């Protein structure tokens, strides 16, 4: 958060003012647009729909790319700059693709006292992915080191995508969780 990264990294950065090619333009599905419209109507001010709309964009497009942010700005009718600012401020908007199962390991103090650091290393070893380095080659896993997930009493804890946490995770439990992912017991990312 304190070191924001550019929203989308490209090998050939665009010059200021240069427009993105039309082919990269993203459009919401009509259902998603209707959902955003309904949210805008709920709040006293349409700007308040920015966060919910970005969540919808993440669900629709898999991650919040620059073109997804632009789609949000168009859908709500607010300046693009505002949406870029909001999307890059919050850590839950993934600005790069993640795996089908995004494993978030809390390594904050309460979990760390119960072995979260060792767990994170195990997760990286088992998935072959480093935190913050994108998904595994098969697109199955990605790993993120996150701050307190409010599971302190049952740490160390791992959250798979946005479902219920898995508590008291040791190596055995981690293998169970990964098997459950492979079986499809968890909702895949962006579903």
């Amino acid at each position, binding site marked *: 958060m304190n070191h924001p990264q550019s929203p989308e990294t490209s090998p050939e950065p665009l010059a200021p003012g240069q427009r993105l090619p039309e082919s990269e333009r993203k459009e919401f599905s009509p259902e998603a647009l209707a959902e955003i419209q309904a949210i805008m109507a709920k709040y006293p001010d349409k700007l308040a729909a920015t966060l919910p709309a970005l969540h919808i964009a993440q669900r629709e497009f898999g991650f919040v790319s620059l073109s997804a942010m632009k789609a949000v700005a168009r859908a709500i009718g607010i300046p693009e700059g505002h949406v870029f600012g*909001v999307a890059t401020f919050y850590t839950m908007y993934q600005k790069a693709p993640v795996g089908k199962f995004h494993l978030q390991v809390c390594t904050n103090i309460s979990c760390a006292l119960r072995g979260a650091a060792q767990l994170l290393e195990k997760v990286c070893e088992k998935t072959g992915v480093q935190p913050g380095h994108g998904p595994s080659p098969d697109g199955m896993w990605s790993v993120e080191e996150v701050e307190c997930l409010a599971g302190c009493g049952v740490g160390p804890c791992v959250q798979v995508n946005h479902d219920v946490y898995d*508590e008291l995770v040791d190596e055995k439990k981690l293998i169970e969780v990964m098997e459950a992912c492979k079986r499809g017991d968890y909702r895949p990312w962006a579903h």
Partner: protein
Amino acid sequence: MAAIRTKHDPQLYTFPGFGSDKYPNLMLRGAGDLDNWHLKVYEQKHEGYVAAKKALKMEPVAVTEEVKASGIRGRGGAGFPAGLKWSFMPKDTPERKFTRYLVCNGDEGEPGTFKDRAILEYNPHQLIEGMIIGGWAMQCQLGFVYIRGEFLWLIEKLEAALQQARDAGYLGKNILGTGWDYDIIVHRGAGAYICGEETALLNSLEGRRGEPRVKPPFPAAKGAFGQPTTINNVETLAAVPPILRMGGAEYGKLGTPKNTGTRIFGVSGHVKRPGLFELPLGTPMDFVVNELAGGSSTGRKIKAIIPGGASAPMFDEKDFDCPLDFDTVKARGSMAGSGGLIVMDEDTCMVQATLRLIRFYAHESCGQCTPCREGCNWMEMILYRIEHGEGRMEDLDLLAGLTPRIGLRTLCPLGDAACGPMDSALQKFRHEFEHHITHKTCYAKGSRLLAQVGAH
């Protein structure tokens, strides 16, 4: 889509004697029971919506008076009297009608705190009832519940609970025949600790970056969407129905005279039975840690306890008997904060623990105020080099000199929060920092709190 939890959670919520007159269970009723969130269960087993029906027959001012009489202090961390906060809301006059909002702060992100999650999981209707009573007392038009983005399944559960309440006529138009219209909107956050600060939360609710605002104007004058707003923690609002049911004066007899009622203490770290314990304020810390949580899980002596979530300065052995209420904890140099007790045993390296905490603040600083944005990063870098055997003795004076330049010099308390653990660790465990600098290794053996992977 609906992800109502079906998996049992291994958390401890109760202890022998819980539910008796000495340890009343006002907020954790039925916690651990996965069916407890239904309206029917809440109404049949837990006197559900009795307080709301009672409150809606009273004058709004009388409801606020009742909450004032209970003496309840905000459970989010600052401990400000909740009834007084409610009375700051402007009243309608013949010349001017106000649009007022009530906001519930469910952005639980303080390390060591996990109480709001339990209320949302097992007693969402109690929160809804509290919000109805608060909304009536302040004559609000709309209520918002701001919940951190990671709690998606709890948001889905709360939405389902809200729908049950709407169907039963507790929300919507003309509630219980009073002619009062009120509804509650759930707003999902997106991963920012700073949004737990009330004005940052308002910005986030309005769809902006979660940056704290300059006060004044205070939220009671100009809050969400420019209208008068009151922000209360989940636990504070969940305590309102019991207050109305029992009567403010009766509730005020719990705890100590200036710190009334019960609160949920979360115990985590090196204890045998970590969990949530609802206890009257003023319960001694060693009783909670040793009796209820079972004492040290490793068999080693307990070295330090953080008494109120990560932001509170640490206590060492001589303060373990401290009664847990707002005033005594403050008088002993820490803060009761959010009620999260983090227990560390003898083998915990305090340099690593402090580095882990400061890294959190450096990561979560919103970047608005220079002292916090730069200062937290500096502290992290200095601690990093001490931890990795490149520290110098002067670094300790540098760290001690940094905190007064961060604390109380920022818009919100995040800067002060970072100084709490830093200062206290340096004062109470200075020998560990010195050992790290001279011997280039930990004073406490066998502790490893930092992962060898990741970007740091």
